């Protein structure tokens, strides 16, 4: 058998899961869809002594847009459920989230992998981490001590590390405001692979089409997904939304980052990808 031996626990509810986490300590891992964890266990890169299966907990796979326009996603909602959500639950204001799902692995990964699992795993190139950073998501965690909300900007600490305490689990992710003019795009060597670089842009367009500002977030260029204020300045200068502004924005993004230099791509290559992908994301956001 590929994975190291472990004790299997099945949690019936969130309290049961967090209680088990508190009892078992550092040797325990939560498993939801398992699409990152089981691969790591099969390689024995991860050898948890205890696995707490939260996949059967009811009521954590919801997906709805509330009256104020916020999108609430249960931690156990799968990527595929988000991808195929009916429009009354996930409307045009959050289309960027639906459309980003196609970049996550492949269909058989998306049918199992969960939103909360992806965020808690915190891969620097993960689409959910980039979306959370771009759209100021709020992450709700529950622990033995109760519930707390964590802003996305405080949630990611670095490679695979987050603000979650060892005894906490994510229960819900909230995207507080609609972002109708937003897009996420990326480049990977093969369809479905981890992105070498990913870029997401949200434009703030007035009713008359004037550009009032925007946000730019990048994945794969640092240990965690990052906003790029230098690139956002180019979108907030009162310039008309169009090729020149988008090129300035992309240029500023490429200049601002200090990307890693590794087997997946040199720093120069990642900078070049950033320039291309930010331009593309601006154009796609504008076209919505």
């Amino acid at each position: 058998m590929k994975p190291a031996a472990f004790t299997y626990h099945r949690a019936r509810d969130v309290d049961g899961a967090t209680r088990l986490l508190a009892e078992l300590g550092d040797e325990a891992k939560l498993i939801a869809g398992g699409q990152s964890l089981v691969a790591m266990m099969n390689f024995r890169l991860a050898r948890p002594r205890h696995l707490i299966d939260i996949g059967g907990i009811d009521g954590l796979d919801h997906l709805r847009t509330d009256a104020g326009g916020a999108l609430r996603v249960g931690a156990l909602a799968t990527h595929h459920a988000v991808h195929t959500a009916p429009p009354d639950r996930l409307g045009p204001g959050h289309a960027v989230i639906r459309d980003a799902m196609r970049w996550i692995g492949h269909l058989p990964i998306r049918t199992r992998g969960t939103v909360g699992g992806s965020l808690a795993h915190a891969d620097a190139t993960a689409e959910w981490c980039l979306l959370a950073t771009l759209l100021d998501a709020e992450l709700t965690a529950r622990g033995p001590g109760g519930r707390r909300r964590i802003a996305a900007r405080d949630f990611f600490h670095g490679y695979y590390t987050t603000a979650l305490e060892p005894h906490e689990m994510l229960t819900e992710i909230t995207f507080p405001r609609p972002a109708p003019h937003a897009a996420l795009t990326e480049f990977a060597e093969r369809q479905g692979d981890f992105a070498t670089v990913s870029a997401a842009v949200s434009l703030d367009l007035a009713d008359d089409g004037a550009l009032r500002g925007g946000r730019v977030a990048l994945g794969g260029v640092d240990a965690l997904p990052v906003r790029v204020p230098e690139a956002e300045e180019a979108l907030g200068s009162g310039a008309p939304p169009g090729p020149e502004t988008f090129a300035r924005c992309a240029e500023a993004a490429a200049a601002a980052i200090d990307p890693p230099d590794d087997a997946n791509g040199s720093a120069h290559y990642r900078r070049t990808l950033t320039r291309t992908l930010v331009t593309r994301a601006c154009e796609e956001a504008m076209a919505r």
Partner: protein
Amino acid sequence: MSDTTHHPHHQQLIGLHVNGEQYEILTEPRRTLADALRHDLGITGTHVGCEHGICGACTVLLDDAPVRSCLMFAAQAEGARVRTVESLSDGRELSDLQQAFSAHHALQCGFCTPGFLMLAEGFLAERPDATKEEIREVVAANLCRCTGYQTIVEAIDDCAAARRRVAPTALAPAQDD
């Protein structure tokens, strides 16, 4: 209901519903669904390639959705319906999808074929009106090292078109996105 615990190295009793039959197996918690199917149940049509979610040879349907059976533990499949490649045919005649694969030469060595078949079976059930472009994107999930993708795409597309001709209304898409 209380939480349940199963200890390592201890045999754990797991109920699995596979191809319409209910089974009970005694196995360790670390048994993947793929290994449980092959070693405990002897249902060996599901192939195991990379065992870390890259190749898709082990694709089965879990409650009708295609999943990698190497990326889940058998215990996680309790309470779900599992379908493997053995469920496609009645044992006498190949299914329409299998016949399309044969007709289009969509297999050479055949190792990856069970995974592609179950991927296509699950995908077409959800998106009977899939375009060829969508089929191309979906089959990127699985690896074929004889590199026969073109014929695989054609086989799936042909099967989908034939199913639409037979039952155009019954197969109306569940949603439009």
